[in-house]
């Protein structure tokens, strides 16, 4: 298990470090500022803070000394004339995902934003450029729309470690896109997904993957917690199968994480349907599958089972080795040392948690 956890929260960037069997706070930065994503680049240990200042706009900072000092860099910005829709100028409203470009491209970093622009940096994040090929995709202006946020947003970027020009992204609401040429061209990969909220649930466009992840050990093995179920692909997103429970809790939710050592093992954080977005029956539950989603098991030991309203946002559930951790909308932070068999409280008094990442 990696020994650091980064949290992006509504009131700051928080790092925890595992020492003598306990998680202790190592760093608090940007106190009071919403941090949409707290991200560490595993290639070089650089920490990134994606800030969502209520007043001053979206900002991006990096630290090369584990949060002791930070440097502000130019946040992704839309070029003059870019429009979300005809007549609606595009401005960066939120940074919703970050991903490093892989070992073959040591200077490359990707960022996904609301209102739907993918950005790439070729200079270690000093500057970012809009990926015009996706922004100009013929489906975007008419076929993408807001889900969770008012405008479309890119919340998932998966770089294939075997071929780092091969990338999947997840967009709410549009669906899954794939590039095999480093972002020059894009293909829609929504076959098998279902969007119950659309007039045609099997439409090509308009799907709502809440989060898209790949099995670390088998990148063709993709999972998504979708607005309309849990879906899995074993063929690199060529097709998707609904693996959620029709009646059980493992169905609606936002977050999903796949085991590092087993592409068939994953955890989800179920929530009540989109009508209420609360904990199911007032109880917090994580569900784990060990067989690729054929069956799900509830993991509740140590989690609150009454008077609970917590849900887990899309970037706020993570795993590393036998460790699993998640943060909630009401500021609770839980850790399991045994793949979810039992849970410990790390903190009950945090701000709303937006992102959780295990790092070295």
């Amino acid at each position, binding site marked *: 298990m990696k020994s650091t956890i980064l949290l992006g929260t509504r009131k700051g960037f928080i790092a925890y470090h595992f020492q003598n069997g306990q998680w202790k706070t190592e760093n608090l930065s940007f106190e009071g500022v919403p941090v949409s994503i707290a991200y560490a680049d595993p290639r070089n240990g650089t920490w990134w803070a994606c800030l969502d*200042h*209520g*007043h*001053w*706009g979206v*900002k991006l900072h990096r630290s090369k000394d584990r949060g002791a000092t930070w440097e*502000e860099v*130019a*946040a992704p*910005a*839309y070029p*003059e004339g870019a429009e979300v829709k005809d007549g609606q*100028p*595009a*401005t*960066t409203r939120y940074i919703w995902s970050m991903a490093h470009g892989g070992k073959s491209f040591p200077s490359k970093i990707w960022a996904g934003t609301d209102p739907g622009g993918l950005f790439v940096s070729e200079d270690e994040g000093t500057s970012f450029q809009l990926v015009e090929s996706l922004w100009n995709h013929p489906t975007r202006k008419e076929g993408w729309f807001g889900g969770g946020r008012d405008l479309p947003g890119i919340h998932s970027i998966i770089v294939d470690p075997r071929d780092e020009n091969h990338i999947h992204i997840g967009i709410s609401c549009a669906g899954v896109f794939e590039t095999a040429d480093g972002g020059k061209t894009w293909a829609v990969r929504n076959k098998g997904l279902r969007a119950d909220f659309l007039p045609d649930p099997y439409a090509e466009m308009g799907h709502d993957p809440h989060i898209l992840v790949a099995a670390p050990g088998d990148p063709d093995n993709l999972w998504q917690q979708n607005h309309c179920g849990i879906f899995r692909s074993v063929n690199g997103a060529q097709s998707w199968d609904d693996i959620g429970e029709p009646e059980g809790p493992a169905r609606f939710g936002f977050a999903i994480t796949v085991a590092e050592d087993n592409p068939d093992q994953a955890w989800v954080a179920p929530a009540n349907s989109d009508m209420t977005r609360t904990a199911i029956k007032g109880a917090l539950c994580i569900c784990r599958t060990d067989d690729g989603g054929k069956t799900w098991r509830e993991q509740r030991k140590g989690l609150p089972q009454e008077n609970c309203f917590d849900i887990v946002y899309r970037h706020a559930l993570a795993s590393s080795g036998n460790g699993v951790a998640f943060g909630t909308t009401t500021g609770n932070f839980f850790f399991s040392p045994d793949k979810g068999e039992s849970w410990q409280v790390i903190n009950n008094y945090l701000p709303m948690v937006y992102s959780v990442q295990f790092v070295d």
Partner: protein
Amino acid sequence: MPTVKFTYALKRFFPGLQQTAAQGDTLAAVLEEMESSYPGVRSYVLDEQGKLRQHVNIFIDGTMIKDRTTLSDPFSENSEIYIMQALSGG
């Protein structure tokens, strides 16, 4: 020469920020000058399309500007241009 004053809230990000005299004859030009003096400050006040951020206000001689998109509100040589944040959120 108009004078630009800033909300104290911006000092968190620009500790050296202080009342600054400006030469420009448009608000956009004045903010460009402030960017020269305090690199990065314009992106805290305007978005990348040059529009005043939603929760930021600019007052000219005590009156809130009307044109938040192209910043065409006039001012005089002795005007005070005050940049403040809306009191919102929690």
